[in-house]
């Protein structure tokens, strides 16, 4: 299962371009953000200082979560285009197996993203944070990284569902962008805060809160959004729902 997906993934040049772009953009943004001046002070100290380094990093990484999502859409829709999903069923794979294979690919993409954040964080933590040792840097990492993993898995799950539903890469990518940037925001206008905080993108985004969220809450009052810890089960429930829906669509459709 893993071996077969790696056989498809490793020689795929586009995948490497997107994954390296993700890592490169993250590293460049973290490096660049340290030089930003806020109220006459360089952000660097606040950005790289422990324990805030990791939440800051995962917040920045969340800006690039759509890149692995685009890649997953391409990997799935390519298989519809090449009719290789159809061939795998002919060769003896079950339709449920096809979904599990893509869930595994999503897991690999999450692992790449986590590794990227970990390496970038370790580098900037050790070189820019005041008086930081490797154990101290790494000790603060698990919680923010796990929250980020849940967020990315949620985005990838939605991307996979759209890819299975639409089967073509460009329309599926446009649909993902429309949902993330427009549709859900519109839906939120019509729902009370007590309900809209459970919507997928809102619940996912809260897993990597903005470094300025606390300040904003102080100025504007509590937002009514879930706390990151509360959002984890919601995010995982959405992710499970998206994969189950993908399996249901694949099970009932002609290939």
């Amino acid at each position, binding site marked *: 299962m893993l071996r077969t997906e790696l056989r498809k993934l490793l*020689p795929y040049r586009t995948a490497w371009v997107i994954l390296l772009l993700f890592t490169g953009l993250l590293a460049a943004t973290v490096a660049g953000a340290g030089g930003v001046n806020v109220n006459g002070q360089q952000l660097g100290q606040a950005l790289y200082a422990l324990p805030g380094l990791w939440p800051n990093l995962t917040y920045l990484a969340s800006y690039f979560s759509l890149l692995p999502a685009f890649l997953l859409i391409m990997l799935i829709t390519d298989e519809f285009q090449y009719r290789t999903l159809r061939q795998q069923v002919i060769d*003896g794979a079950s339709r449920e197996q096809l979904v599990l294979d893509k869930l595994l690919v999503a897991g690999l993409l999450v692992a790449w993203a986590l590794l990227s954040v970990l390496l970038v964080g370790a580098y900037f933590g050790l070189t820019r944070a005041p008086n930081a040792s490797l154990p101290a840097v790494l000790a603060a990492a698990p919680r923010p990284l796990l929250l980020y993993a849940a967020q990315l898995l949620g985005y990838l799950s939605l991307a996979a569902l759209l890819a299975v539903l639409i089967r073509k890469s460009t329309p599926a990518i446009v649909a993902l962008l429309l949902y993330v940037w427009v549709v859900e925001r519109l839906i939120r206008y019509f729902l009370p805060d007590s309900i809209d905080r459970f919507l997928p993108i809102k619940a996912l985004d809260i897993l990597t809160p903005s470094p300025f969220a606390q300040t904003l809450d102080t100025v504007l009052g509590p937002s009514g959004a879930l706390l990151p810890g509360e959002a984890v089960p919601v995010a995982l429930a959405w992710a499970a729902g998206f994969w189950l829906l993908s399996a249901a669509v694949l099970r009932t459709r002609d290939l």
Partner: protein
Amino acid sequence: MSAILDIQRLTKRYARTTAVQDLSLSVPAGSVFGLLGPNGSGKTTTLGIALGVLRASSGAVRWFGAAPTAEARRRVGALLETPNFFPYLTARQNLQISADTKRASPATIDAALETVELAGRQHEPVRGFSLGMKQRLALAAALLGQPEVLVLDEPTNGLDPQGIADVRRLIQRLAAEGRTIILASHLLDEVQKVCTHAAVLHQGQLRAAGPVGQILAATDRVHLRLAPDADPQALLRALAAVPFAQDVQPAPGGACSLALAPGHSPADLNRALFAQGLALAHLSTEQRSLENQFLQLIQNS
């Protein structure tokens, strides 16, 4: 013979068309089963349902006497409609993926590549292959793991005459090894040369099925002629009274041709005419090709 594939009352409806309608057929173990029909007759749809990629509107498919499962499909090697490969992977990498899915030994990859004469191009990306090469690679993929059954949908598409002859020899060799082969093809001559059984589909419906010899015998034409001095109409009148004489067609010079109902021989016909006082000056049987039979079945439907 037990049935390898048993299809019962299969129907597949799309929004505006019915691709397959109430189709029942059975593929005996060890047979080379030809599935014939013009474009759009439902051959690929039938095979697609049997192989689990299309959903039937109604009806049932059984492989090896049981409900179809992914495990049963791993006992079948299939080339359905078009070769399906990752274009950016090499021929060998694509076969490795197929072997993984079929849980076939990687050792069978070399043998399959040799069989289709692609061993020398195995490290080239499939995107650079011609249609014929992709077709041969798809045949190699179908052969992986030495499946008990091969389903080949238009396997000679895109092949040159040498390639077509090679595929024919391959099918005959595999059949001689006792494999069951289901072959959907437009090339009726090919089917006649290699198939032991056939089914003819038209507009999604089954028109004929059975051993090829039986299907052909059903339309053997019997040619008759009386002596030159006999009344030409007498033969036609006498034939009208013979219930198993069908599709009687007059020919010049008082001759005529006809088909016999199943279970009746030219000798039966000769006896029936003699009983009516007619002595034939000529009686011969014309064995028709599968192509003629196929065209007649299609025209009659």
